[in-house]
């Protein structure tokens, strides 16, 4: 029993879940029962996939020991590419594919520059943040194109499904990707390489892992997911604004860190990243429902975020001090 408790409490995701439950109770009370009603859950779950997909990619990349600050820009560029092509009359499937290829290409360039010149990915992707945003504005000519009516298979991406229309199709996609990437990380040799590369690069290299290719692949996955998430958002909102995703870079990293991913690489889980993203969205939503004044909103947001991580650290410390031999 004690032993189970200990093993359980040591998982960094757990603190996140505990905090989530705590917040849900507080917000449910403060909002007079609105927080957990169907419509609000619908709202949270409808938006979650977009943020969470980006967080998954960033988490994976951070486990591999690298940063990606350009996710926000890719989040805007991919659907913008798609929209411009759609407006030009291209069928959805091609336009969408080309958009995603652009995302992959950006991921590749990020990875290639970082590795080839051995420079910090912080800089490469910060540069890319500007470059990709600039391209987005340039190809849109400054004016967001309209998505032609009926050009998008809404049923495949944004329609409501499930009991009580609780979730959207985007949630299904998100689940699929989450499971896929989580399995990739924990059950395949590729995942092992990612973790080793981020955990201690010299060891990974000397054991013959193709660390360069692993990193580039991870950059590409991260970019791809950001592009996919951006496309879902644009399909849901119906309009590709060139400014979407601004400021997302820090949020995604925050989600990963809240979920227990180490900034230095090697440590973290996909589930953690998802929980981090969920926490950020729930805090945001709950604060709105609690009618926090505009000027104080950011304060509450900042304080709760820090508190989530403090709680996490505290719980793990407590768990560690339980004196049970776990046989590990």
């Amino acid at each position, binding site marked *: 029993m004690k032993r189970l408790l200990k093993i359980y409490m040591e998982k960094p995701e757990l603190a996140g879940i505990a905090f989530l439950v705590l917040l849900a109770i507080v917000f449910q009370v403060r909002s*007079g029962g609105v927080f957990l009603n169907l419509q*609000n859950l619908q709202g949270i779950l409808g938006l979650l996939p977009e943020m969470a997909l980006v967080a998954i990619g960033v988490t994976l990349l951070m486990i591999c020991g690298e940063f990606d600050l350009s996710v926000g820009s890719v989040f805007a560029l991919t659907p913008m590419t798609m929209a411009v092509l759609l407006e030009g009359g291209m069928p959805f499937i091609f336009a969408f594919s080309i958009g995603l290829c652009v995302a992959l290409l950006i991921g590749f360039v990020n990875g290639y520059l970082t590795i080839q010149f051995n420079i910090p990915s912080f800089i490469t992707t910060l540069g890319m943040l500007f470059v990709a945003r600039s391209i987005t504005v340039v190809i849109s000519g400054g*004016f967001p*194109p309209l998505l032609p009516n009926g050009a998008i298979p809404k049923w495949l991406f944004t329609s409501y499904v499930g009991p009580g229309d609780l979730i959207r199709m985007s949630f299904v996609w998100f689940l699929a990707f989450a499971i896929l990437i989580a399995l990739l990380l924990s059950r395949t040799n590729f995942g092992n390489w990612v973790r080793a590369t981020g955990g201690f690069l010299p060891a990974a290299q000397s054991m013959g892992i193709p660390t360069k290719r692993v990193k580039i692949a991870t950059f590409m996955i991260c970019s791809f997911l950001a592009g996919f998430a951006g496309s879902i958002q644009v399909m849901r909102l119906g309009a590709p604004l060139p*400014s979407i995703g*601004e400021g997302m870079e820090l949020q995604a990293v925050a989600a990963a860190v809240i979920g227990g991913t180490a900034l230095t690489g090697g440590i973290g889980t996909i589930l953690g990243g998802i929980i981090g993203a969920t926490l950020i969205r729930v805090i*945001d*939503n709950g604060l709105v429902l609690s009618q926090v004044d*505009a000027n104080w*909103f950011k304060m509450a947001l900042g304080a709760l975020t820090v508190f989530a991580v403090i709680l996490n650290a505290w719980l793990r410390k407590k768990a560690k001090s339980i004196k049970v031999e776990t046989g590990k």
Partner: protein
Amino acid sequence: EPMNIVFTHHSSASNPFWQAVKKGFDDACEKIEANCQMIFTQTEGAIDQQAANMMAALARNPDALLTSIVDNNAFDEILQGAVDNGVITMAVNVDDTEGAAGNARQAFIGQGFVPAGYSLGKAMSEFFPAEGPIKAVVGISAPGQNWSEQRGAGVMQFLEEFKEANPDREVEIVRLDTGTDGAVVAERVGAYINANPDTTAYFDTGLWHAYVAQVLADRGIEPGKVLMGGFDIVAEVLQQMEAGYIQVQVDQQPYMQGFIPVMQAYLAHTVKLSPSDVDTGQGIVRAEDVPALWDLAKQGLR
């Protein structure tokens, strides 16, 4: 010899409103064959960056400087220097709240934030239900940033007056930090309306209420149940106005704001006609105006 004209303001390149201003600006420059440059900031509302850009641009000694004056003091010294150097200097889009008295600029083309907010509130009040309580939500897109705070303040100024004028009605005003990301705004305001179904009206200090409309439509809330209004015209806004979710929109005619000052500068430069104030219109757009706007919007003219 072509004229050199520089336009600095407080917004970033991903803002469609300023892209329309840029179009007007570029078109006008082409007409008079001037050498023109519009300088955006990196982040929305970065006044310090705008000041830096202005200083850099002035180092080139342009013939005319066009700028938005979003703060009463920050640009005073720089603009005074420009005027002293004989640069034709005009305020566009936003002026010093003290007008000509507060600043050395020679003329103002546009409409201030506060009056714009005020007229939005006023236009919207025509749609208010005849009786019963009013619950108005003002979404401050960027707390602390001038453009957003002042537009919001204009709206609230009207609402306060409305409240005084109707002492028998219950008027509640709520300020929310809604953000500048369409998806986030939609989610936040959507959640709020969900929790407070008695909301009468939502005012956005930008154009993000168009995405709120999406969310409402999604939820099957019929148009008009929550009145909505905001600033600037883009395609989505027109769509939602047609759908009936947005009642009132303030349009300051960005194309004109880009075009006119160039012409004035041209006249001032060539024939020494002194620039004069131009009101680019109260610019209140209602559903019935939409059909006429579609074409213009597509061309980036409004």
